[in-house]
């Protein structure tokens, strides 16, 4: 398949991206290209120009400071999945990055491109929403931060303005005792999420404390499962309590469920509680293992506020 013709420009800095975006209205940014190039080949998009940002060093890399992980927009899924810092401070993000597509796709796809594209069948929006991430965005006037909760607005629709550039993703480091998990029901060929469920849970005195549950894949944009969170909060984390809470997810799904030739909307609706239950079970298991065995922690496993 051949993409429609487009002009091509290469930016060497974030400032230059902004200049090129203002000079070429309608241009799209090319990072790893693993969402954009398929769109072009299918002729679902026909931008007049692409601005290749893939070589900008300042947009790459992972660092930890002030209670947050900062992940440069051009950091690849493979780098995130292999990062010991991400594994330590945002384990659900590491898990989700490691089940995107396949190894060759993970070598090219970037976190910034992923969130800016906002594919409903993607994994990262679901987990970034659960972890309370925010996006550092360069704008015409400077910089702003957009929380994940207000970023993903609809299918392939975000809060980004025409000249906005996602430069980094900031993820709060996991509080002590929190268990995280990402549960994915993959399409067997494309490896996109038919359903993705993320959970971040803390235990207080044997009871479920703060709990966040999110869903993607079956809804136009990742959502929080408030009914599940409410049902589980304050409960002892028994298998029954988890199953009952997971069943409440049907209240959170809304009317616009995605269905296709592989998995109908009805089927996804029926499978959603299963995925939520699995995510919660795994997250609670991790939370309780942390609560029971604090001595096993390595010295670097120290919350930033200490």
């Amino acid at each position: 398949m051949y993409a429609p013709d487009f002009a091509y420009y290469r930016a060497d800095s974030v400032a230059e991206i902004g200049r090129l975006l203002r000079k070429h209205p309608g241009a799209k940014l090319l990072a790893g290209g693993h969402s954009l190039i398929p769109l072009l080949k299918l002729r679902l998009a026909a931008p007049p120009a692409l601005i290749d940002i893939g070589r900008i060093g300042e947009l790459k890399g992972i660092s930890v400071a002030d209670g947050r992980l900062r992940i440069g927009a051009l950091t690849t899924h493979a780098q995130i999945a292999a990062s010991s810092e991400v594994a330590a401070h945002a384990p659900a993000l590491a898990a989700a990055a490691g089940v995107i597509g396949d190894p060759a796709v993970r070598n090219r796809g970037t976190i910034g491109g992923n969130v800016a594209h906002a594919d409903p069948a993607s994994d990262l929006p679901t987990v970034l929403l659960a972890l309370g991430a925010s996006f550092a965005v360069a704008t015409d006037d400077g910089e702003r931060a957009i929380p994940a909760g207000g970023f993903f607005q609809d299918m392939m629709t975000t809060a980004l303005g025409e000249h906005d550039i996602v430069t980094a993703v900031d993820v709060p480091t996991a509080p002590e005792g929190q268990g995280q998990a990402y549960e994915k029901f993959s399409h067997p060929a494309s490896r996109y999420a038919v359903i993705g469920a993320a959970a971040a849970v803390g235990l207080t005195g044997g009871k479920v404390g703060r709990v966040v549950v999110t869903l993607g894949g079956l809804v136009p944009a990742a959502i929080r499962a408030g009914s599940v969170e409410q049902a589980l909060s304050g409960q002892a984390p028994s298998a029954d309590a988890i199953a009952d809470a997971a069943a409440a997810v049907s209240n959170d799904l809304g009317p616009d469920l995605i269905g296709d030739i592989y998995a109908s909307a009805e089927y996804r609706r029926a499978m959603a509680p299963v995925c939520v239950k699995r995510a919660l079970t795994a997250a609670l298991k991790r939370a309780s293992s942390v609560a029971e065995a604090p001595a096993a922690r390595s010295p670097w496993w120290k919350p930033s506020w200490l």
Partner: protein
Amino acid sequence: MTVPVSITVNGQRYDREVEPRLLLVHFLREVIGSTGTKVGCDTSQCGACTVLLDGISLKSCTALAVQADGAEVTTIEGLAAGEALHPLQDAFWEKHGLQCGFCTPGMIMASHELLRVTPDPSDAQIRHGLEGNLCRCTGYQNIVRAVRQAAGTTAGQR
């Protein structure tokens, strides 16, 4: 609009003027005539077009030639050292890891990536590492056996 690119393929440098929309796989097959790399699904699912870009695997149907400007590409043609097959090629032959052979160039390049990252993989890791490559003939059993044989050699580093 055309753009000048300089891409080194299997050690030989090619300077060409290309349309920005030209895919890397078409650069390889049609511009420089290196047809070992296949186009299968053309939708980044089947892995037949897998090559190495600066030593790391990618699906060349989902990359533009301009993105490879200045880079080194390794294709299936670049693995053997003269008449001596690469350990992965040897292993696919020995273990009958192919029937029609269409997926094989991509399967071997993806196996190269797997052994680069995981030099001594378990069977489960081999299957996970090759999940982006589809084979419609073998049922994968002999492909897993071939990769297992090649593991423990220097297959991922060559």
